């Protein structure tokens, strides 16, 4: 899981304008592993993308790296 946390961190830090504010934390849920991604509120739009396109791309890449585990990438909406 540390491998996937580092992969998500690398990807998200590359996309945002405030890489120092990026945090990725792994937790277990009833439906498997979840990676919670927190970014600077100003970067939320960049990470989600138009109609969620960027968030979807991040999930697809992480799924392809997560060979023998199921993992969900959750982008935390800091305003909610």
């Amino acid at each position: 899981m540390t491998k996937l946390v580092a992969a998500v961190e690398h990807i998200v830090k590359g996309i945002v304008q405030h890489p120092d504010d990026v945090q990725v934390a792994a937790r277990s849920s009833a439906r498997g592993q979840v990676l919670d991604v927190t970014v600077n509120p100003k970067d939320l739009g960049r990470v989600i993308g138009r109609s969620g396109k960027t968030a979807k791309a991040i999930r697809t890449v992480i799924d392809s790296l997560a060979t023998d585990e199921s993992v969900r990438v959750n982008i935390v909406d800091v305003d909610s």
Partner: protein
Amino acid sequence: MNEQQTVTIAEIEEESELAADFIEELLDIADLDGDLEIEISERRAIISVSAEEDVLIDLSKTDAVTALQEIVRLVVQNKTGRYSRLVLDIGGSRKKREGELARLVERAVERLDAGASFAELPPMSSYERKIIHSLVAERGYSSESKGEGAQRRTIIRPA
């Protein structure tokens, strides 16, 4: 963010370096052993990742390649402030996809030969539509794109 904007070779080289650094680190994090090759063709950077054996098998699936290409473009754009059209190839994914596109054109041409007045292909990126247009022209048919944004697709007609 205009796609038609002209870019210099130096800018494309800068793009490919940034992309290669990002991908190399990602492969490193993921414990995947891959070799990177950079090529510049028709004013696009093409980054190819290859590996011995099947280590890239999951990442070389069309959906994964499209997704990673999208991410790499955003990373590059974030650094340069310019729109990036770079193309990513993982484990020969581009060749495989070109084979799929050729088969789509083949089936469309069969429909036209059977009497259809036109054949419509599924929505594709500008890069893939360009490949389709040249495959169609090689076969002596005509093609045009229609639809907006993610829905833009190619219509093939008898010449």
